[in-house]
């Protein structure tokens, strides 16, 4: 109530900071930020603000603390978890205008970027200027934020080798919820953003927190050399019991750049509407990206992977070059076509990190749950960090126009989330209800520590309140 009363003053104070073109409280402008592509319930913000500088963000946070109004960082809103929906209203801080690449250090292989820098922008930089460098690309839309993806511990094309994109963060510059500016990582001591060690790893205060502990205004991201040889090996997995074994064996040989298993339904959903006819003898596809700096190295690795595929009697698949490039040359646009699988513009998912040893169970039981609800079992798995864990993601395109379908999806996702937790995994980028399910199983000490940290950093509870269930 008080917030509503103060909104005029908040508006004019924020307007002074960013100028009238970049603040709005018009209903239709707010409405667009009130929901996203998922099943998460919408909620209107009170203001939308588009800052350009760190100073402006600091000022906005000071105003937010003065009036105790929530602040929710936003770039593209494609997190697939409703994470930018302002569940308690407040200010949407749309960071698109902070889109500068501050530095690319070719020699030390990192870039320092602002949160509004998109995957497309980064790709363009590599295509036009830094041709020998690359990044770990997710399947995200090209307009999504590189920094937001890393802060959300996203998975991407080089995760098998280097872990999630959060592991590729060399350091951060952050505006704390109370407005102070801090740097963490090597950049707190040195002009070089080379890494997070050997210092207390304070970047962890901001990674995986869904914007509840501060606003990242710069991030150092690791870049990697581009290999000279790179190709994709695809084979059919005929049986659900085999979705893990060949992948794990290839992982152990340390020869692959990326290993992905996608269910038959996911592989077809881009080009086929629901219901998809399952092909006889096709359960899933194993996709292995092999790369090397010499032909000999590449061929050696390719040969080893092919041998394992043969040993398991998996049938190699020849894809047209265009289809291979779609998978190899990320970010992709067409790959998102499967969002329309149920002709409804909605996408939600239960994505998780799990021990690879539980992949088969997760795959089988997940398939049963999805089919029971009448959904195509679109399942995606990726080996992470040399096989120390793996992705298990159930993708659920749905018809946003049908309230009944939304309810069904909600129930199904709850079951899938429980399944993930039961097999020892943890859902990533969790919406509030999922965070709650995670916390029910969380070590009490850990949960209390998280709450203490939140309270310490954000005494007035202005940053993305409600998120992660951190009451």
């Amino acid at each position: 109530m008080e917030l509503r009363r103060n909104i005029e003053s908040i508006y004019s104070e924020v307007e002074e900071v960013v100028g009238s073109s970049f603040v709005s409280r018009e209903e239709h402008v707010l409405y667009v930020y009130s929901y996203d592509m998922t099943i998460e319930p919408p909620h209107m913000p009170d203001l939308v603000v588009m800052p350009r500088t760190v100073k402006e963000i600091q000022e906005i946070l000071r105003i937010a603390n003065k009036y105790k109004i929530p602040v929710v960082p936003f770039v593209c809103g494609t997190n697939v978890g409703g994470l930018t929906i302002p569940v308690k209203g407040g200010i949407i801080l749309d960071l698109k205008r902070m889109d500068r690449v501050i530095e690319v250090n070719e020699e030390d292989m990192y870039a320092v970027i602002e949160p509004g820098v998109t995957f497309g922008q980064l790709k363009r930089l590599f295509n036009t200027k830094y041709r020998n460098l690359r990044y770990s690309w997710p399947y995200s839309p090209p307009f999504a934020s590189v920094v937001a993806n890393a802060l959300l511990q996203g998975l991407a094309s080089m995760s098998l080798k280097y872990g999630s994109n959060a592991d590729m963060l060399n350091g951060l510059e952050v505006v704390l919820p109370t407005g102070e500016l801090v740097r963490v990582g090597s950049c707190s001591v040195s002009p070089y953003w080379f890494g997070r060690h050997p210092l207390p790893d304070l970047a962890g205060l901001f990674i995986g927190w869904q914007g509840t502990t501060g606003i990242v205004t710069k991030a150092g991201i690791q870049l990697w050399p581009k290999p000279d040889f790179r190709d994709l090996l695809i084979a059919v997995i005929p049986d659900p019991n085999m979705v893990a074994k060949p992948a794990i064996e290839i992982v152990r040989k340390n020869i692959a750049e990326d290993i992905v298993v996608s269910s038959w339904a996911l592989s077809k959903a881009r080009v086929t509407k629901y219901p998809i006819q399952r092909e006889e003898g096709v359960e899933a596809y194993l996709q292995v990206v092999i790369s090397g700096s010499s032909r000999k190295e590449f061929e050696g690795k390719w040969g080893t992977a092919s041998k394992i595929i043969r040993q398991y009697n998996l049938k190699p698949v020849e894809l047209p070059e265009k289809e291979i490039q779609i998978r190899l040359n990320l970010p992709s646009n067409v790959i998102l076509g499967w969002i329309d699988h149920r002709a409804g513009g909605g996408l939600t998912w239960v994505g998780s990190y799990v021990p690879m040893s539980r992949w088969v169970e997760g795959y089988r039981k997940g398939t049963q749950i999805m089919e029971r609800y009448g959904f195509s079992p679109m399942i995606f798995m990726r080996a992470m960090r040399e096989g120390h864990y793996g992705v298990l993601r159930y993708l659920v395109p749905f018809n946003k126009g049908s309230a009944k379908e939304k309810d069904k999806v909600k129930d199904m996702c709850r079951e899938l989330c429980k399944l993930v937790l039961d097999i020892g995994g943890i859902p990533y980028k969790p919406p509030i209800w999922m965070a709650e399910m995670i916390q029910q199983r969380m070590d009490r000490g850990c949960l209390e520590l998280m709450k203490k940290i939140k309270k310490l950093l954000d005494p007035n509870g202005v940053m993305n309140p409600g998120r992660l269930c951190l009451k």
Partner: protein
Amino acid sequence: MSEVMEMPLSEVAEWLHRCARCGNCKTVYGIFKPSCPSGEEFKLEAFYPSGRIWIARGIYTGKVRPSRQLIKSIYTCTTCASCTVQCVLDLHEHIVDIIEALREELVRMGVGPTDPQARLAKYIKMERNPYLEPHSKRMELLRRLNVYEKRKADIVYFVGCTAAYIRKEVAEATVRILKECGVEFSTLKEDEWCCGSPLLRIGQVDLAKEIADHNAAAIEESGAIRVLTSCAGCYKTLKKDYPKMGRTVSAEVIHVTDLLAELIAEDRLKFSREIKATVTYHDPCHLGRHMGLYESPRQILEAIPGLKLVEMERNMENAWCCGAGGGVKSTWGGFALNVAKRRIEEAERTGANFIVTSCPFCKTNLNDAYEKFGGLRTVDVVELVLKAI
């Protein structure tokens, strides 16, 4: 003609919930440069295609209340259709239809269009053109060129308001080339009215339908087999929008660049003079993305002796809009010029000496931006052709 009055958004209702807000439409895939002129200028989500689609849904479901505040985000779309190329979901080809239906809805609700646009509509009603020029002078140039009197021919030249009053050089070049090539043609004389494009773009559909009835009847009356236009807007409106509104155009609608490419192929259009220059071609949105006409203008330019054609980074279906369309220039002139400035800068990077286009309205806006910011000048394809014959 009586028509059932239903919500214009009902026609596109099945698409209103189909946008995922994935953001694909915000960037040109592969090049990764901006795709939506209004989003790029104003930045807030409500100025991107997805924002507009969601607002349309909000209006349709009653979650967003109609108000004058809506005007800026809904009427700063240049209807360039770049989003329809970048979006890969099924709704892609309906995005501009959704935006135009929303505008029609806002007009019905008494919210739209903008004041300057409302004036344009008034002028069209009064003088049959949006420039408030006397209708009696519409054919002045054609009279001067002695092509007014001709009554019947297989081709009828639909001059269009911009070429008739503002960019007369485009109409003049078109006429001279046709004469030079011995192509017989007539005009609709004073029966040519504004094609209605500006009205359709701003949501004034009822008036556009009246005009379409008149023009379609006049074309039929002329007995022509082909209607020739030298304006991208007229071309799209006559060829695509009239049938969509249920108005049949009795003759085949053809753009001057298609006709000239045909004449070159038949050896009826021959070039005798060299033009030593490097040029780059700006695809008008209403000719390119809306109508798929990309090749003919390029074929013509490539046939001109001495002329070298180089492409801008965003070309053909990925072309960056000139910024003028969709009723934008009349209300947000500064924004229209900013968009054109970016186009000129892109053209400059090709090393071209000047820009060529095939729409008098694009030419106007690009040259207005040139006057303000410098860079490169823009000419119409027909002007170059005339120079080379």
